[in-house]
């Protein structure tokens, strides 16, 4: 199972500031394989192409409100496809309403981050997300053996 530093990450947010902030925090956690998308359509395109190239993203950060296709719509699109079951989708949003959190969780979000988030809290979250990925992949490997 990959170390944190080997993870491949996509940051999908229409704000340059947020993409850069998340990138900086990931780099401090020694993650260097980072790509970004500025809208939902671009995110879908990159995620699909990465899977086709057999180099799928491990973590996708999705802004709730994005042009063309929203983060929630991107999440719904990929959670309906079993080949993305072990990709961690993390919603990034300024909305901290309970109903939006519930929507994201019901749609299959791995986790939820409310902006602004401190680099320390984001790093802690990364660790939890990484543990989720490891558990998911171990389960998948066990299924394949039987």
């Amino acid at each position: 199972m990959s170390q944190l530093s080997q993870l491949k990450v996509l940051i999908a947010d229409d704000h340059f500031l947020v993409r850069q902030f998340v990138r900086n925090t990931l780099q401090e956690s020694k993650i260097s394989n980072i790509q970004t998308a500025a809208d939902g359509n671009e995110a879908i395109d990159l995620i699909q192409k990465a899977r086709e190239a057999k180099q799928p993203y491990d973590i996708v950060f999705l802004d709730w409100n994005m042009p063309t296709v929203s983060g929630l719509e991107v999440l719904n699109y990929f959670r309906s496809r079993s080949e993305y079951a072990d990709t961690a989708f993390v919603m990034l949003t300024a909305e901290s309403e309970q109903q939006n959190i519930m929507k994201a969780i019901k749609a299959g979000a791995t986790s939820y981050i409310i902006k602004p988030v401190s680099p320390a809290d984001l790093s802690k979250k990364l660790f939890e997300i990484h543990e989720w990925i490891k558990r998911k992949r171990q389960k998948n490997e066990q299924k394949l053996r039987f």
Partner: protein
Amino acid sequence: MGKTAQHLALDEQLSMEITNAVCGAMEHTFNVKVKPGKFEIGEGMVSLVGDVSGVIGMVQDKLEATMILCLKFETVRDILPRVVGQTVSVTHEMTLDAVGELTNMIFGQIKTELNGRGYSLKLGIPSVIMGRGHFVSHFHRGKHMIVPFYLDDHMFQVHVALHPLATDGQS
């Protein structure tokens, strides 16, 4: 149905919520500690003067509000490189983007705090106004609150205007 405008006061509690939201956003995003100044309550139209301002509306069935975050270019040019890197030139587009997102984060948090107190408020989409020395005025002659914030030699302001609606929905 949720609390009404008569219960939402421009007071110390609101100024604390504004302060927490602004200080939190600035510290988490830019790693800067800003200091809040003493808030002021006023009445009547007031204009803020700045170089880049984020404006957002907030509504409820018995209340309308507008909130403004008003900064100078020099402040943005001081804080943005802390995220984008010191060697990167701060462009107009980056400034627009940063202030828009800051407006969203700060006022989103304030809305959440107020909704936690039972106000059921909704936020509009933020707008950003850019231009050296522009004026931003609330078209409102009622009460408002201004909270100044200080960072080194810089000062920026948050302005909140509240306008209760009459019970038939007319202002």
